[in-house]
């Protein structure tokens, strides 16, 4: 009874505060370093505008691809029993822990001009698909790292959903597709949205795999994180302005996820 009224140990609180400061100080530094008066000009330099536009295009495309491929994949992982399933799940989740630069090297081995896939295409059909140094390549790299976030979120939702609702739908005459579209999907929609937002955030911040696989071509593969890194030497004000943009987006995402989706589950 009394434990609820006891004060938390002072040492624990002090260390916790230190950890909070560790998170807060870099943000404070970024805000303090920013040259607010020239922010508008910094963000409208051609390099910054290209990076902003490209990041939006690439990250949204990667999100769309993640939903398109992730939904069937999550469904199969949640609902279909097959041999080697743990292996497949491990493979899908690997990009979550794989260093992105390694992911980029692996993508090169598979999808570069002399990579595995292009050699097959050449042997079978006599053509090669140029992905390296193209926007499509940047989208591919971002999808590679973003897809797992969508899949784990949606798979968890499919697993925890009460499947008796699908039974109800089928006894009411709904075939499997109708049941999925009218019952399963609406019931897991919050998780689908949360998964898509997480995937988008990951795609937006992607650096290692993109720069390794797609290179750093202004207007084609130089997304925001790449631009930040390169402008840091030549034009630090622009780098900080772009960083603020990414920080702002991240803050909006974390707040909206917390209030809308994460608390409910």
């Amino acid at each position: 009874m009394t434990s609820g009224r006891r004060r938390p140990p002072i040492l624990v609180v002090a260390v916790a505060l230190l950890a909070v400061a560790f998170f807060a100080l870099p943000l404070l530094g970024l805000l303090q370093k920013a040259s607010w008066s020239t922010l508008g000009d910094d963000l409208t330099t051609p390099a910054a505008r290209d990076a902003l536009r490209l990041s939006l295009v690439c990250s949204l495309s990667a999100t769309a691809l993640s939903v398109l491929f992730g939904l069937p994949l999550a469904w199969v992982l949640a609902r279909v029993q097959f041999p080697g399933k743990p292996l497949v799940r491990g493979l899908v989740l690997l990009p979550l822990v794989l260093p992105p630069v390694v992911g980029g090297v692996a993508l090169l081995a598979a999808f570069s001009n002399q990579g595995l896939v292009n050699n097959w295409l050449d042997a079978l059909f006599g053509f090669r698909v140029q992905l390296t140094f193209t926007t499509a390549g940047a989208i591919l790299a971002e999808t590679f790292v973003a897809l797992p976030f969508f899949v784990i979120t949606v798979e968890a939702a499919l697993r925890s959903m009460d499947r008796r609702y699908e039974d109800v739908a089928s006894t009411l005459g709904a075939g499997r597709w109708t049941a999925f579209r009218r019952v399963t999907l609406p019931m897991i929609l919050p998780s689908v949205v949360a998964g898509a937002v997480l995937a988008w955030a990951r795609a937006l911040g992607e650096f290692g795999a993109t720069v390794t696989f797609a290179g750093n071509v202004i207007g084609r593969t130089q997304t925001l994180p790449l631009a930040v890194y390169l402008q840091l030497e030549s034009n630090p004000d622009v780098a900080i302005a772009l960083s603020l943009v990414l920080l702002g987006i991240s803050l909006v995402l974390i707040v909206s996820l917390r209030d809308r989706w994460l608390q409910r589950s």
Partner: protein
Amino acid sequence: MSLTAALHLQLGDLHLDLELTVGAGEVVALLGPNGAGKTTVLRALAGLQPIESGRITIGDRVVDEPSTGSFEVPERRPVGVVFQDYLLFPHLTVRENVAFGLRSRGVGKAEARATADTWLARVGVAELAGSKPRAVSGGQAQRTALARALATEPELLLLDEPLAALDAGTRTTVRRDLHRYLSEFGGATVIVTHDALDAIALADRVVILESGHVTQAGTIEEVTTRPRSAYVADLLGVNLLRGTARGTTVELAPGPGRVIVADPVVGPVLLLIHPHAVGLHRNRPEGSARNQWEGQITGFDMLGDRVRVRLAGDVSLVAEVTPAAVAEMGLVEGESVWATVKATEVAAYAD
């Protein structure tokens, strides 16, 4: 519009083996303890659980017969199901829930909504049409689930514990209304329940299912006057003893008790003794009752304004007395008392 089913299937520890026939307009209750396989029977009839052998026929359509390889998927069977907990789709309104089956079967939106509204009016929840399921009460959800199952005009209606989720007050009203809707329904109805009162109030016939097997089947009257298993006896709150008769003496099995009955019988019999026919005495009684057994009190239960006293001895049974009698005799758990039953109060029938 009738159901004929012979189901055999193994599911984990459950070995299900039963035959079930329900006529058009007839209501059959499948009564049994938890884990007896009642819900599995419903799932098999609905097509959610294929059987391993046997045959299920609804109307004149064979919907499941493994020997010929015929199996109709749930969405193609003329079956309506009211699931336990009702399971209204949380993202749809009450009206959309009821219209769901019609929409799935290709009925146009406007027509499906109009039919849904008719059904909602019929079960008395018309005013809830636009509400989401989380805003309706348990009784209203039950009515909505029933309307949803009936809206597709099935030939077979299945109800899984239709009243279990309701509180006692709502239960009585919903039970009464459900009885009316079921009597208006022209198809066959199977109700799964573990509540004897639901079975008595709603069904024409009762099938007792224990560990996947039918232990008794018949009209309510047959089952209540001639229970055949300890489970049914417990439900009805009566004493059921088993033994072998020779003349008016019945040797209990397992022994060593002995019961005297009024009319001579022969062979294996079941003995039914109502608890209120059991008298209790502190000392060996002098009276005319021909059955007198000594037993130890193992416990008390309150039942309305009566006390049920559980006795263990050569003949273990339950006696029902007034609280005043318990106080007057100073009955205490662990003490020995004498129980008496007149021979004419023992109903004996072939096992």
